[in-house]
């Protein structure tokens, strides 16, 4: 891994750790794991993940798809920085709906890919 990537991984973990309540046990009830194309794992609250309609269907669809059983979703098409930004978006969205109206800053170079991912994830 390059230095930059390492740094990003640490940053991602930090972000995740900052937001979530429990990291020790990844039970199906409370948290889910999102894996990017490079293999980075983002562990976030189930509630945050459900902001995306697509992820919500994945987790709640009847019929026993692997995702709902394991609580793990792989996105081979989404890169790590995008996925990271998306997780941040989830939490910001929850905050906003609770009343705390802050701004969500998007770096310009991420815009296009972010949009595509958003379309894919129906967010």
């Amino acid at each position, binding site marked *: 891994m390059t230095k930059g990537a390492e740094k990003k991984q640490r940053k991602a973990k930090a972000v995740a750790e900052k937001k979530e309540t429990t990291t020790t046990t990844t039970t199906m009830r409370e948290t889910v794991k999102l894996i990017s194309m490079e293999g980075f794992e983002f562990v976030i609250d189930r509630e945050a993940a459900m902001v995306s309609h*697509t992820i919500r*269907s*994945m987790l709640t669809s009847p*019929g026993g*798809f692997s995702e709902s*059983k394991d609580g793990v979703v792989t996105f081979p*098409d989404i890169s790590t920085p995008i996925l990271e930004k998306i997780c941040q978006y989830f939490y910001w969205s929850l905050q906003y709906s609770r009343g705390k109206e802050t701004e969500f800053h998007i770096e310009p170079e991420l815009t296009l890919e972010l949009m595509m991912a958003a379309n894919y994830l129906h967010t």
Partner: protein
Amino acid sequence: MSNQKKRNFQIEAFKHRVVVDPKYADKTWQILERAIHQIYNQDASGLSFEELYRNAYNMVLHKFGEKLYSGFIATMTAHLKEKSKLIEAAQGGSFLEELNKKWNEHNKALEMIRDILMYMDRTYIESTKKTHVHPMGLNLWRDNVVHFPKIHTRLLNTLLDLVQKERTGEVIDRGLMRNVIKMFMDLGESVYQEDFEKPFLEASSEFYKVESQEFIESCDCGDYLKKAEKRLTEEIDRVAHYLDPKSEEKITSVVEKEMIANHMQRLVHMENSGLVNMLLNDKYEDLGRMYNLFRRVTNGLLTVRDVMTSHLREMGKQLVTDPEKSKDPVEYVQRLLDERDKYDKVINTAFGNDKTFQNALNSSFEYFINLNARSPEFISLFVDDKLRKGLKGITDVDVEVILDKVMMLFRYLQEKDVFEKYYKQHLAKRLLSGKTVSDDAERSLIVKLKTECGYQFTSKLEGMFTDMKTSEDTMRGFYGSHPELSEGPTLIVQVLTTGSWPTQPAVPCNLPAEVSVLCEKFRSYYLGTHTGRRLSWQTNMGTADIKAVFGKGQKHELNVSTFQMCVLMLFNNSDRLSYKEIEQATEIPAPDLKRCLQSLACVKGKNVIKKEPMSKDIGEEDSFFVNDKFTSKFYKVKIGTVVAQKETEPEKQETRQRVEEDRKPQIEAAIVRIMKSRKILDHNNIIAEVTKQLQPRFLANPTEIKKRIESLIERDFLERDSTDRKLYRYLA
């Protein structure tokens, strides 16, 4: 690179694969197709949602949405065709269960597929306006399974069969029914209605047609109604358990129609158990049931009401025209009250106090009470009886209740002025003989009459009470100013105002000397205080208390009428008197004298006088003497007071004539009143208006009104219009 990042951003190369590979679409589709198969075969656990979703996403993105859509339809259709073969192959009982199972499986699979294909649902289908995935799935099921010819009829028959079984008392699997019916509902309102509800209603209609025919041949009315009610509740229960709530109204109306509406007439008129029978026997439960059931069908209650009304009128007519019943007026009225109470109770308990039935009851009573022209007289006699003795020992509240009931009957009378006349007569007799049981009751009734008919009706009656009071005061005054009269016979005088009391012609009578002296003294006293008045003694209405000593020394006090007193006093001077001698001495007219002598001499146990010959009737040749052997258990003996009786024929005629006479001025007054305000009015309208105005008192006869109009024209109150003979004009 980092410098570039700061100044402007670069759009990096498109990371997604640019599709060049034409087979790409096919490959992707294959993945999806396989996945759908697996889902249908319950084998989806190993699949990754994300992968499938991504594939579908990509297909749509790369404009292969069409292929995806049609592929989906084709796959699903193939699956469903297979499934329907399986279902069809199921044997007898498990057919429904198989269907249910497959339906549940289908639903689950459909949901999963829908989730995977959500992107297509959102974008491609939206833009092309095709059917969405979920509804499409339902439609495919409908087309391939439910409407599959072999399954369709079998399904319907199975369902109807089960319903039939349940109706005959078997227990069926209601949960299963509910799921299957719910399937219909999920497939759409029209599917439910076309494929299930309509045939269901038809079959039910047939079933009930047959059943109702069977029942009505074999059961009586009460039982039939019980059965009908049971079936109705059953059907409502059925709907609640496994049918669409909207069907409730439809199925209940089917039951109502077949079981009730079609047999309505027959039920009501059924011999020995129909409506009339129920009414006569106070079958409240059955009546209540009939009311509730018939309420549901059009004209149901109308039928019941009509039959009840005609029955009441028939019964009432028989009651009032029965000569037996007319013999005893108190009986007659009591019977009327009882009947009214009975039907009131029926309407209260069984018909829920329905106003229309109350009205029917009232109109029927009004109809037949007025069929007997003696009803007003009888009602007055009934009241008279109660006020004389019937109310003894009854609490105030009960007294009110009885009086209110009488008022109810009074309201039904059309000829209220006849009642007034009789009531006045009877009241006068009661007051003068001091025979009222309760003064409060009398006054209470007067108040009720006043509320009902107005002040005019009761002013004279109240005048009678005032006279009684005034007389008491006058007597006190008389004896106060003549202290020397405290020795000797005591005189009690009631001074009656002529206008208030029923007029009777003054009957001549020679009072014995002791009495007439007192009378004269009183007359001068009274005229001393009230100048300009005229007093005339009404000897036919008085009473007297006499002390008598008989042969063996028995002392008795006799309470007799004034006439009787005159006769008895004669025997102070002679032992034996002939009829002619008595007649001469007393100057009492023959019929009264005969009656008086009869009560003195011919009544067993009260014959203070003996008659020769010992016949029952008084003859002009009879002679009389004191009965020395007279005995009685009591010291005080009452002899034949005149009690208010039913009038004899001539008396009746006389009263009626008087009533007619009284009506004439009332009609005239009404005519003048109306014409004064309207100035010009035509003949028919006058008749209508006058009748309406006089309606609270009596039913005016149009011929009579015409006569009165003629009379008024003669007296220049009205004139006929010169051009139109039917028009009348008021002359000021």
